[in-house]
């Protein structure tokens, strides 16, 4: 516990110092906006150095030898630890906690929306609740799979002993807790009510909580950039002998494509939020119409990140699902190379479609056609991935365990999300669908369907590897089905209310939509309850579940060829790679991990 206490203390001291400097050098008060910014920056640095970055790293910068602090058992997870498996587990647990919190916030929203007027909250409070749900869930979707499985599995799957930059990896993770705390503490200074999108002019004019939102999300973006950088560098430089690009497990390719995106475009989110801070604090006029600025600029800069961000969330999900489908249908992955090309072209085309979020924003009309065409072009590589999933399942020897069940659900939901997306990409239909619950339902089908279901599937699939114990199969299947069924019952009605003109982002709606909304709210509550089962299953199994063998799924990829959980540096001896990762049932195919004459361990 000592590193945590040390980090907290030096974080508080850092905050005080930063806020004090701001108070002394400018006209800002100690709780003013500039003091919040400088306080957060210094507090973040204080926290990072306190938690262990100083000992493990900072000492080098002043000519001292770095100290590594060793710890055993659960204490490993509560310190600046550079082991990628520890960091992956830290991300997984953190993100699941944030997910459950944000889910509770969603339940509060559905409670408010159960009937038309202002019931549980005032309209103003509802906006704050909605913004909190939005940004927390976005964080989970961005860093859930990529942070947890990306860190845990990429080095294992390519036969490396760790990431390319282990200390940057630990730094990236430990930036996340202050971000979460700043977001959750924002209500103390007036909260933020501009949605997770933080559109100006509101985000320039609203309470001080928006400032905390901005600095926290910028820090989260930096963590995401560093994580992306690490995965790209790891995949390029750390592959084991024989692990050619065409033998990479498909999840590694997906994480690689998503990491290229998060390395580059995330800077645009940071830029847009910095511009808001400058407008609020330094008196610039990027988005202020009186000085000649334009709020439309924000939407361009913001969506240049936030549309590709959808692929940062979904690409790793696709990787997890294809991985699971191949291993559980005991067949080679169908059209492996086409899938790889699709991942890369989704990342590429996905970066130039951002303005389809702006069809109703007053953007130049001659841009609508090109952005519509480009957006719909993304459905071609996406279709290839569906084809690969179905082609792999076709005549496979299906082994219906919880991960495969969730993968089936994923295919269904992402399909609904994709098809409903066409109507939003068409600017003609988007004009009437924009800002309605149709968008909300579509978005939840793609992101919950594409990212969260994959996060759940991956959690079950790699649970034995991470914890060394098996989860309860029956409880897992009940949870998966429960979650899936009530997800449909919640969100299909929302398509309907959206088509009937119910606006998103506000607390009230037309009286005649009350019945359907009450139904959706009840279904949402039952869906939320399914997570009790999920949490109980994982917690109980991690402690008391039957001990897992090294390879319970009989899978070929490298992470299953080492013990569960893997030893500290992953492989007892440096591995080399022979056959492909998915050559199930291929006659005469050599194993993926090259057999050595005298195996160690």
């Amino acid at each position, binding site marked *: 516990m000592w590193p945590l206490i040390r980090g907290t203390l030096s974080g508080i001291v850092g905050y005080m110092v930063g806020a004090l400097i701001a108070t002394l050098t400018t006209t800002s008060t100690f709780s003013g906006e500039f003091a919040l910014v400088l306080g957060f920056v210094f507090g973040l640095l204080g926290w990072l150095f306190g938690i262990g970055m100083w000992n493990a790293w900072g000492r080098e910068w002043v000519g001292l030898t770095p100290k590594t602090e060793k710890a055993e058992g659960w204490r490993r997870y509560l310190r600046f630890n550079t082991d990628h498996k520890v960091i992956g587990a830290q991300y997984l647990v953190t993100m699941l906690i944030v997910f459950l919190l944000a889910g509770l916030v969603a339940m509060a929203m559905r409670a408010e929306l159960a009937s038309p007027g202002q019931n549980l909250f005032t309209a103003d409070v509802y906006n704050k609740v909605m913004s909190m749900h939005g940004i927390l869930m976005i964080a989970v979707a961005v860093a859930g799979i990529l942070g947890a499985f990306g860190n845990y599995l990429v080095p294992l799957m390519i036969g490396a002993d760790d990431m390319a930059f282990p200390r940057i990896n630990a730094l990236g993770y430990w930036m996340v807790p202050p971000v979460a705390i700043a977001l959750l503490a924002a209500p103390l200074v007036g909260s933020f009510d501009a949605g997770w999108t933080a559109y100006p002019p509101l985000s320039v004019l609203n309470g001080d909580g928006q400032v905390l939102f901005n600095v926290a999300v910028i820090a989260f973006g930096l963590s995401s950039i560093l994580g992306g950088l690490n995965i790209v560098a790891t995949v390029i430089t750390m592959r084991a002998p024989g692990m050619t690009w065409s033998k990479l497990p498909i999840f590694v390719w997906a994480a690689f494509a998503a990491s290229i995106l998060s390395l580059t475009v995330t800077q645009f989110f940071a830029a847009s939020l910095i511009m808001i801070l400058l407008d609020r604090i330094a008196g610039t006029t990027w988005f202020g119409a009186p*000085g000649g600025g334009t709020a439309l600029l924000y939407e361009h800069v913001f969506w240049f990140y936030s549309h590709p961000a959808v692929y940062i969330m979904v690409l790793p999900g696709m990787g997890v699902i294809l991985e699971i489908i191949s291993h559980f249908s005991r067949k080679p992955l169908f059209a492996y190379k086409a899938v790889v090309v699709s991942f890369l072209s989704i990342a590429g085309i996905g970066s130039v479609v951002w303005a389809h979020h702006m069809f109703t924003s007053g953007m130049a009309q001659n841009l609508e056609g090109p952005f519509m065409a480009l957006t719909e072009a993304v459905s071609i590589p996406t279709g290839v991935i569906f084809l690969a999933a179905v082609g792999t399942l076709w005549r496979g020897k299906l082994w219906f365990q919880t991960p495969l069940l969730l993968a089936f659900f994923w295919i269904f939901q992402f399909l609904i999300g994709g098809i409903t997306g066409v109507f939003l990409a068409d600017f003609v239909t988007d004009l009437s669908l924009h800002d309605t619950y149709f968008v909300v339902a579509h978005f939840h089908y793609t992101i919950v369907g594409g990212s969260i279901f994959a996060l759940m599937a991956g959690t079950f699939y790699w649970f034995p590897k991470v914890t060394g114990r098996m989860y309860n199969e029956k409880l897992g299947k009940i949870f998966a089905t429960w979650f899936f069924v009530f997800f449909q019952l919640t969100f299909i009605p929302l398509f309907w209310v959206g088509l009937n003109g119910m606006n998103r982002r506000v607390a009230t709606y037309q009286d005649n939509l009350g019945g359907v909304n009450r139904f959706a709210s009840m279904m949402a509550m039952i869906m939320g309850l399914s997570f009790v089962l999920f949490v109980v299953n994982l917690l109980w199994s991690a402690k008391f579940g039957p001990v897992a063998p090294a390879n319970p799924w009989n899978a070929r990829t490298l992470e299953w060829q080492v013990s569960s959980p893997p030893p500290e540096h992953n492989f007892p001896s440096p591995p080399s790679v022979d056959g492909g990762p998915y050559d199930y049932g291929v006659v005469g195919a050599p194993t993926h991990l090259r057999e050595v004459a005298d195996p160690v361990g």
Partner: protein
Amino acid sequence: MTTSAEPIQHGAGPSRQRRINQLGLWLFFASETFLFGAFISSRFITSQTSTPEDLNQALALALTIVLLLSSISAYLAETANAHDDHRGFRIYTVATITLGALFLGGVALEWKEALEYFPPGTIYGTAFFSLVGLHAFHVLTGLIALAVILFLGKEGRFGSKDSWPVEGVIKYWHFVDLAWVIIYPTLYLF
């Protein structure tokens, strides 16, 4: 010339860790390019190519020259270090830091004037202070990094045997200079 004219031995090629570090640094530059790109493109969206009459063109040109000169001295420092010329390394690093500090001083002077003619509340002022501020912050971090390698290298710690820290910092310095080479025309030369 204090440095040897003979090329250093590249026989074994860069080590694995060094290749990884180099790749990481270039990926970082790619990422930073997007940050600068966001602000540069925003400048053209909000104020097109307009520039105010009151820009101090002479000062900006002088700043550009100072920064370009600092890139040359940084290169000489890197080369001197790779040839184990510790004295040269110190001299050229100090020169680079001096030129960089001179640049920051010039920026402060420029800001003082700019606050009068086109304050942040105007649309050109918005782009001007944001972009120059963003760049000056990068120069400041570069100066800190240069000071760190100067301090750590005072007893000849780096040299050809451990040249990466020096090389990394100098590459970063070149990157910051290159950013200015693009920001300068963006703000002044239309």
